[in-house]
């Protein structure tokens, strides 16, 4: 084959361009930290990249949702703790009042204290977190307990109660609230009211029924708290799993499209050597012609 100078020149140029394109590729990989810039460089990596991004976004969101659930639960737990204590105090007072040595006057002062404690329980039932009533399910804008004709009853406007469901994992909707039925319900305030009424009456009074009733209500609150505790444990597990998922999702995403720096740098250096060699050889090839050797 006849080879002319211009052919060699063009070949050299073409190979230099190719080598420069390779260098550009590796350099971009290093500067962006990504294996690919556009889907055509590796469609599979690109498609997976989109899915993994969605996954990372989802897990991030679920973790945020989980922390929202924690806010609800922590506050509920706190409230139930206080409510339990208040009920215990009322029970103690009932046992005291049942003591026959108490005079009606003394019983009235107990009554005052019980009223205070009842008000405290109403307040607790109407606890607001970030402006939301937390013991009303999804009716967060309405009070749980309202006063109707001097009686404390469950707000009818907030019925029926629906759990606040928050998605903490794909398809897993977690109730964030404590169901107030059986905790802050009409029965509780009826029992307290019964006790208060009895404290106001003169003469011999039998408090045994009240003690039983109040004990039942205390148990209800404690049970509610125990259930909440169990749910908190479950959430801990879910959150733990989400933490792992987030790490794994990010890791997989990085492995999918992230560049292996050692490899990219090595590639770049190798390419640089090739490029230099090509340039050096180029000056040797292009220069001499027959004219250089003629007198």
């Amino acid at each position, binding site marked *: 084959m*006849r080879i002319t100078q211009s052919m060699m020149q063009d070949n050299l140029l073409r190979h230099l361009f190719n080598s420069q394109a390779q260098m550009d590729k590796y350099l971009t990989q290093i500067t962006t930290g990504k294996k690919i810039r*556009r*889907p*055509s460089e590796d469609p599979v990596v690109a498609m997976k990249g989109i899915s993994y991004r969605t996954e990372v976004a989802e897990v991030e969101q679920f973790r*945020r949702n989980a922390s929202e659930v924690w806010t609800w639960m922590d506050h509920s737990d706190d409230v139930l703790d206080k409510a339990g204590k208040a009920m215990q105090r009322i029970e103690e007072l009932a046992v005291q009042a049942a003591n026959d040595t108490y005079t009606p006057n003394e019983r009235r002062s107990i009554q005052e204290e019980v009223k205070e404690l009842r008000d405290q329980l109403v307040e607790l039932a109407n606890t607001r977190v970030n402006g939301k009533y937390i013991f009303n399910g999804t009716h967060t*804008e309405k009070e749980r307990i309202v006063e109707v004709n001097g009686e404390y009853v469950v707000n009818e406007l907030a019925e029926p109660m629906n759990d606040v*469901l928050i998605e903490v994992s794909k398809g897993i909707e977690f109730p964030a609230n404590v169901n107030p039925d059986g905790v802050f319900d009409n029965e509780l305030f009826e029992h307290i009211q019964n006790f208060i009424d009895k404290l106001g009456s003169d003469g011999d009074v039998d408090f045994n029924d009240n003690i039983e009733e109040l004990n039942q209500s205390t148990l209800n609150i404690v049970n509610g708290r125990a259930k909440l505790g169990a749910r908190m444990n479950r959430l801990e597990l879910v959150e733990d799993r989400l933490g792992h998922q987030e790490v794994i999702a990010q890791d997989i995403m990085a492995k999918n*499209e992230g560049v292996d720096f050692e490899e990219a740098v090595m590639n770049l250096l190798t390419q640089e050597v090739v490029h230099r060699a090509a340039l050096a050889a180029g000056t040797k090839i292009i220069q001499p012609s027959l004219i250089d050797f003629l007198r």
Partner: protein
Amino acid sequence: MSTFHGLEMAKRALFAQQGALYTTGHNISNVNTSGYSRQRAEFVTTKPYPVPSRVQPHIAGQLGTGVKIGTVERVRDQFLDAQYRAETSKYSYWNTMSEALSRMEELINEPSENGLSRTMDQFWQSLQELATNPDNDGARAVVAERGLAVAETFNYLSKSLQAIQGDLKDQIEKGTVEKVNSLLDQIADVNDQIQKLEPHGYLPNDLYDDRDRLIDELSEIINIKVTYSKSSNSPNELEIADGLASIEIVDESGKSFDPPVKLIEAYDPDNQTDQEVNKLEIDFDDTGTLVSEVRVGSTTVFDDEHNDDMSILGSIGSFTALIEANGYVDEDGNAVGVYPEMLAELDKLAKEFAEAFNAVHSSGFDMNGDEGKEFFVRKDEFDGITAESITVASEILDDPNLIAAAVANKGSRNGENALELTKVFDNENIDGLGTSPRKFLTALVGQLGVDAQRANRMTGNTGILRDQVDHSRRSVSAVSLDEEISNLIKFQHAYNAAARNMTAVDELIDRVINQMGLVGR
């Protein structure tokens, strides 16, 4: 044998070597001229003496009378030209296609932190946030804004795709059709000049080179076949003359269409028919974007009923790539092509996603306890959501409390419908898409990636093939300076020797004229 036979012979040698030297000089001058083929002065011996006749002198054998330049030929292989042009057409097709797809890839910009899928993910996150805090005004406002961001990304993609489509249309009109027609005029013009020279026994090498260069350029735009015919019936016309070029468009495998599509039909010396040039003409549809008809001269080679491989699309080159990228109208009035199809897919995604989203939204209840309205609407008064027209209802943007986050009978501050809305993204049962919106988008990007990858790979492959043929072609035709310099020396020596020969003859004649017959003086 005449007295001056030697002088004449030496003179002829001087002239011939000089001519060869000048040809060498011409080669050296044009070493960097693109499309130039090296030329060779072909020496032939002149007619020997004596020629047989009635009065021929009886001498031993025939006496040579020297040399002359028979022809100055260019060194070129037309077979390689044909190969080169076929490969150029293929390369040009894939290169154009690859550029069109690359622009689309850049626009779609996936996977990235600001593409459509990212905006959708952010919208999804805002809905989750709303589901956890349905009574939070901030969460509501974020949903409205993120929804708008999704709509605007659709708008942006659609408009930008259409803008690129507009560029492609310009490229078809200015870059190819006008260029083809200008090339055809130039080739026809060169044909005319060649036709005037060849009958007189000339080889217009430089005109041949011009014509070949123009035809090379034409082959980038469309696959062509060149046939050559004699330019005259003149007895002086040389057997090795290239003749006149006729050009026809052929399909990808190099076969003629039925009927043949001729761009240039050369002058026919037998029937005295003039050279015929059929210009390329193109029409666009009513919208002014899609190709509706292509004609060569008066022959329709492409319209809504002829758009298969039997039409001009069966050929290959930047022209067909541009038509396929820009899009054309098929027999059912549908837009076919890379860009219109991507636009249609985006429209489909926007429409189906918006409708599925609206359906869930309408089934919920807003903060005021009213039924949800349409979340996504069209910007104008027409029906049907498209990628270009999608937006968020202005009432919702003005008052995010109208976002229906709640389900029926569970209080206005319930967030369950917002949760349902997040499920639209992964709902696999959207009939119009056949899959979930997220998967549809991923598949769309994947398909684009595969198509672009194929186009890039084919560009590389066909580019290598073209370069190889070009290499072979230049191996034959390109000027080698080493070769020319050695020829220069060769011819210079021959010239010097011829001059020396003339001196020798001169001395002989000097002997006869000045020194003969002087005996005894």
